[in-house]
């Protein structure tokens, strides 16, 4: 057969399939609906899972690492194999000043009261990130105006601030505000940069803020925060006699409360850095600060997110449930299709007797299931869009992120058609086993 003939046969089978589907409307509707529901439910939850387990900084995240050391005392409250999730101020500053990585930034979060110059606005809180200078270049934060502060400015405890686009829009109507003054917590800060819209999801560099849809509005030098005792938030874990900081009071030396990120451009550098962390721990133990044997970790962004289990258990459960549901819908479709094809044994027998090969019959039946899959896929897509709309109405922090992207759209159709073709395989094969003569005789 040449290509034109094949195309003709395909068109003919398609016509046969449509006729057959029209003959049993209720049954066809049932199959399409079952496929659509299964696909709709599983694509909704799969999209949510896909969004939540995504890479926050594609292309960059593989070079970013999160060093952990273990400064806890020997009788720690919860002895565990893993070192704490954060660093103490001393270790943070030591590692920062050692500057063994290509870039490094020490940071923590909090919120500061902002007193706008406009009398029409009451004072309000803004979410703040206190960090050292490399933050912006390391995380590829895009600047709309100006730039970040320099390392020297940071060490000099400069009263400088980088603000987010949303805050710039609110306070300065979106104009270039570099050089303007911002009053926060009773201190005047000079705006040095305005970030363009930027919100990595998950909020990987500090998961204590909630993992998703969280963005700081002001970025201040960490050293300035330490001097001014600006309010900090997030998690503080202490041991021994360590006391947790509340409000403007800093936690004691026996508490971990800072995040430290490094950029290491090659695997060799990462291995060397891990070595350095072990040496550092050894040195600290020799000095008497550390009591435990060196216990260090160096996780990349994706490893860190995995370790922290940022994707909520409920979302994974929902996804499992939806795929279980899809499986039942498929078994349902296989059963119905089998019944339908077997019922047409007579018709198929006539076709066989008239010279149609088994292959041709098989192709015809598969095209029929393919049509069901395609229509079911379109229905499933509509249902998935509706499902995602429902997810967006829910008040969880990741709700706003639940959107279908192009790759998921494609996956939906592939899944729907493949699933129904698979469901059509067994019934089509069984139907093709019919001996032509037998069918003609029995009727």
């Amino acid at each position, binding site marked *: 057969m040449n290509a034109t003939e094949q195309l003709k046969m395909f068109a003919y089978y398609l016509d046969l399939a449509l006729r057959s589907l029209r003959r049993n409307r209720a049954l066809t509707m049932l199959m399409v609906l079952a496929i659509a529901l299964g696909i709709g439910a599983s694509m909704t939850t799969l999209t949510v899972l896909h969004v939540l387990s995504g890479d926050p900084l594609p292309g960059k995240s593989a070079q970013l690492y999160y060093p952990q050391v273990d400064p806890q005392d020997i009788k720690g409250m919860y002895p565990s194999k893993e070192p704490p999730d954060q660093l103490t101020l001393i270790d943070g500053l030591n590692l920062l000043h050692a500057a063994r990585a290509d870039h490094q930034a020490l940071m923590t979060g909090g919120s500061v009261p902002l007193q706008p110059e406009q009398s029409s606005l009451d004072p309000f809180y803004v979410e703040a990130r206190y960090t050292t200078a490399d933050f912006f270049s390391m995380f590829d934060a895009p600047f709309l105006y100006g730039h970040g502060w320099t390392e020297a400015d940071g060490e000099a405890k400069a009263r400088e601030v980088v603000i987010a686009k949303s805050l710039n829009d609110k306070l300065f109507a979106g104009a270039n505000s570099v050089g303007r003054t911002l009053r926060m917590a009773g201190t005047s800060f000079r705006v040095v940069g305005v970030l363009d819209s930027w919100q990595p999801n998950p909020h990987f560099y500090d998961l204590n803020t909630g993992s998703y849809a969280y963005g700081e509005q002001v970025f201040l030098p960490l050293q300035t925060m330490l001097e001014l005792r600006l309010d900090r938030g997030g998690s503080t874990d202490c041991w021994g006699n360590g006391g947790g900081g509340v409000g403007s009071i800093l936690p004691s030396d026996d508490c971990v409360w800072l995040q430290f990120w490094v950029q290491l451009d090659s695997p060799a550098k990462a291995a060397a850095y891990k070595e350095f962390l072990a040496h550092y721990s050894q040195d600290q133990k020799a000095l008497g600060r550390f009591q435990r044997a060196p216990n260090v970790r160096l996780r990349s962004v994706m490893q860190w997110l995995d370790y922290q289990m940022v994707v909520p*258990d409920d979302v994974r459960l929902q996804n499992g449930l939806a795929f279980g*549901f899809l499986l*039942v819908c498929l078994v349902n479709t296989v059963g119905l299709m089998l019944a339908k094809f077997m*019922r047409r044994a007579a018709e198929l027998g006539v076709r066989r007797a008239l010279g149609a090969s088994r292959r041709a019959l098989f192709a015809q039946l598969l095209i029929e299931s393919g049509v069901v899959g395609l229509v079911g896929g379109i229905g499933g897509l509509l249902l998935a869009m509706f499902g995602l709309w429902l997810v967006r109405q829910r*008040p969880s922090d990741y709700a706003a992120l639940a959107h279908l992207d192009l790759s998921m759209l494609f996956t939906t159709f592939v899944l729907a058609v493949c699933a129904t073709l698979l469901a059509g395989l067994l019934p089509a094969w069984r139907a093709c086993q019919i001996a032509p003569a037998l069918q003609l005789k029995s*009727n």
Partner: protein
Amino acid sequence: MTMHPILAALRKHKAGVVLISLQIALTLAIVCNAVFIIGQRVERVNRPTGLDENDLFLVTQQWVGAPSGDDPAGVEKLDVMQREDLAALRNLPDVASVAPSNSVPLLNSSWTGSLSLKPGAQLGSKGGTRTAYYFTDEQALTTLGLHLVTGRAFNAGDVQHQGARDQRDRPVVIVTKALADKLFPQGNAVGKVIYSDGSTAPSTIIGVVERLQIPSTGSWGNAFTWYSTLVPTRLDSSYARYVVRAKPGRRDAAMRAVPAALYAVNPMRVLDDDESVKSFADIRASAYRADVGMAILMGVVCLILLCVTAAGIVGLTSFWVGQRHRQIGVRRALGARKVDILHYFQIENLLIAGAGVVLGVLLAVGLNTWLMTHYEMTRIPLPYVMTGVLAMLVLGQLAVFVPARRASNVPPVTATRAV
């Protein structure tokens, strides 16, 4: 009627029978576990906190430009400011009582520590018990609506104050009944001495309250959900929380009056409308919204799943009825009554569904075991499985009824006609 003809007929439709049994089995396995999860969530959401939650709300506020709590003078100044706020709130016409507190149940902001029967015990050592502290004052019990089982409530003389970071002795505490029973299994906890957070200074238990949940609803708090300790101490920092009980039915009016009253005391503070004054009902709703959402979602999926399975049974049985039109006619012509034909299909469905639920029970237990290793899940209780089995059998009978009725209406004369 003997089973033999039914079994013989089923053998002719092996693939169809296997598929419908498999579908029933999968549906049973999924629905059982989903309903079990729903049940757990509903139970979690409905557990009482121990508070009288009506008319209760929480005020969270922060002073701007307040003194630092690092030095004694600053702490004293902050305490004066806090007492001024408390006095102003207590004077409001719609307010019944007010107590400062670092947190409330379900708020997910907690100060936890460990209690021990021995002085200077290392944190986390044996015999120690984890607890969550509520730092509050003498109006705590009335404001929170806690039920005192034995002992006495705090009085004004018990109340101290401290900077939020300072360590201070806690001469008297009130604990929950669950915590008292854990520390003193023989009872009579009142008057006994315990040591908090590895301290060498004793704390005397002066009272026991019936029930008080800790602030955390996360899984890390599951081990000590009911182990709360009340400490009669005001914490002083630039930040303060006040629990307010409004007069019955006056909660909304009281909530509206709060910002103006606090601004009148001291305008240098941040109070934003949505978050700073929050009713306990809202705190409860936001603590459990994920659980409620999950329960609803699982419920909807189960319902659709049951519908799909029922529709599948209807569809397949309809086909079989159509296929056996002539045989049914023959049986009718040979003297079978309508009800015999009806029963034939009903029994056939019972056999298929029966095989399905046997496999389904195994799958349900298997799925539950898998979930137990991957998620926080307990063994599924037998009643859930048995109810599921019964539900699937009933569902099968309901679904088969319409096609079976149609089969029973096939007239005997069909036997004489060609298809």
